[in-house]
């Protein structure tokens, strides 16, 4: 997902045309990632409110998706599928029936989970009317992904700025207006089903052809581009400046958690301790995405945590050094 963002930014900068087959393969991989990520979240959400049966059953449903990713890419997670100008591996014909089979199974079981949680009154007692992010605040704080779509904000990069093969396969954006944790849960479960649909359609529509563009010349330095990808948690932006070395001069990624966490203080206000873990969890936070940098001096074993200010100063000093000032 991040690799797609980075590759797309570079391709945009250097105006590299990605072959259609590669764009479809990227779409399939991105949606497989969304399926596994949403199911992972659902399991953890169950665990947070003490509902371990949800955790165990949902992760059992998720396991074939990981297995499938390994069949296609060689890895269960962090697929390493993208290269600038295309993808590293093709999806051979022999794998298609397996993909369809896993998708059918995941769809059937996810629908069963959806029906089970919709009918569970105790579960809804815990999730409805809790962790509310009103629609206007969701827009004002610019929260993203399923967290925003649960508050009735229909933002989705896949539709707003189509990339990969999303323009061809189309995306039905799932929006719920409940504004609470329950709405965010329903959005994620329904999005899983939509992702299954996209994987199936993309597989059926996938054209023949090469899987990577021919890049004869090195990418020229000084090109600037920004690309957005709809990650499972929301939109992710990648900004790249190319250099004359075989690496970027500047690269900046912004993960959606950075934005989504802004809604936490608002939504846990006047709530009890019991509701705080599930409210924070309902934004599917990736704390490592917002963490500071920690450095260990190997010789002395000394630990240093860099603050935001120190990091800024270091970055500015480095920029000055590079500019030769």
């Amino acid at each position, binding site marked *: 997902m991040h690799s797609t963002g980075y590759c797309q930014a570079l391709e945009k900068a250097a105006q590299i045309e990605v072959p259609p087959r590669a764009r479809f393969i990227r779409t399939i991989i991105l949606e497989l990632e969304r399926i596994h990520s949403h199911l992972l979240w659902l399991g953890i959400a*169950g*665990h*947070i*409110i*003490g*509902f*371990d*049966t*949800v*955790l*165990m*059953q949902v992760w*059992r449903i998720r396991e074939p998706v990981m297995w499938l990713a390994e069949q296609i890419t060689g890895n269960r997670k962090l697929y390493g599928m993208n290269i600038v100008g295309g993808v590293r591996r093709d999806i051979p014909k022999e794998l298609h029936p397996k993909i369809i089979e896993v998708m059918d199974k995941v769809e059937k079981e996810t629908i069963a989970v959806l029906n089970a949680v919709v009918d*569970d009154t*105790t*579960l809804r*007692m*815990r999730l409805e009317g809790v962790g509310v992010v009103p629609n206007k605040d969701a827009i004002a704080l610019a929260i993203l992904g399923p967290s925003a779509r649960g508050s009735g904000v229909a933002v989705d990069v896949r539709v707003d700025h189509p990339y990969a093969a999303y323009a061809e396969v189309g995306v039905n954006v799932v929006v719920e207006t409940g504004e609470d944790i329950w709405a965010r849960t329903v959005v994620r479960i329904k999005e899983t089903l939509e992702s299954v649909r996209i994987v199936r359609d993309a597989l059926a529509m996938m054209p023949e052809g090469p899987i990577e563009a021919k890049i004869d010349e090195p990418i020229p330095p000084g090109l600037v581009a920004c690309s957005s990808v709809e990650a499972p948690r929301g939109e992710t932006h990648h900004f790249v400046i190319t250099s004359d070395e075989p690496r970027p001069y500047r690269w900046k990624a912004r993960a959606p958690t950075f934005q989504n966490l802004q809604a936490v203080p608002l939504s846990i206000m006047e709530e*009890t*301790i*019991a*509701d*705080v*873990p599930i409210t924070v969890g309902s934004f599917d936070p990736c704390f490592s995405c917002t963490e500071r940098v920690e450095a260990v001096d190997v010789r002395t074993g000394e630990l240093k945590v860099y603050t935001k200010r120190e990091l800024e100063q270091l970055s500015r000093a480095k920029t000055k050094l590079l500019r030769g000032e």
Partner: protein
Amino acid sequence: MNRALGIGLLNLVLVLALSPLLEGIIRKLKAFVHSRIGPPLYQPYLDLFKLLGKEEIDSETNVLFRWSPIIAFAAVMLVALLTPIGLVPPMNGAGEVIVFVYLITVSGVMIMASGIGSASPFAIVGSSREMMMILTVEPILAIALITAGVKAGSMRFSDILAYQMSHPYSLSMGIVTFALFLAVLAQLAKLPFDIVEAETEIMEGPFIEQSGPRLALFKWSFFAKELIFASILAAIFLPWPRVEASVLAVVVTLLKVVVILLLVGVIDSVNPRLRIDQAIRFYFSMIFVALVGLAFALVGS
């Protein structure tokens, strides 16, 4: 006298030695619902054995913190002597019902004391939750047992058991049995009412700083309570099949205990945890239900 001593020893052995196995059965059932293989049936024994062999760590040398597990365990052992497990309970003095309620409350209060005695804010939150639970759940237990006592015209378990043998089941008993079963879920800290411990919210609450042998005593007293409460339900509130107090009755009661605990285990695995305010509201309505049962008993139905 010797007979009472024998039954007393039997009760203690059953409660101490058998209760971890029952916990093992519940864990296996939960694993089955989760599509897991689960730990072996004897895992709770290993847990206790391991904890009992650890050194004692005093993070806080507080009297409450130090003695609460021991007093809780002792209280539960005394309760075991009052519990009818197929036979007439050994401590056959006057007003056992009242003593039973008091001693069970002692074990709850000791959980609270353990939390107050430790320095962690999570423990304090857990203690305040335990206090609220005691205040709403204990009355249901008391009302249910008093209802049984009113029916039999005596506060002795032996008289109540004898009455159950010879009289048909009544409406009032049905009502209080329902309320008591739900109260037992909270007494055993099972979902949806494991609010006091709430691992993912307040990290085991009052037990957060307990470790080693003292934690083992708390855990063991919880295992013991499972057997005790299930036995009370089986012997007094669900008296079928009616077997005269004998060795056969012990076996029958234990089988019923397993069935009741399996039911508790199923409820435990198909529910999320409620919030304390939701649980309290729920148990307040249950107190009302139990009082209706008592009222029926008082008018003789």
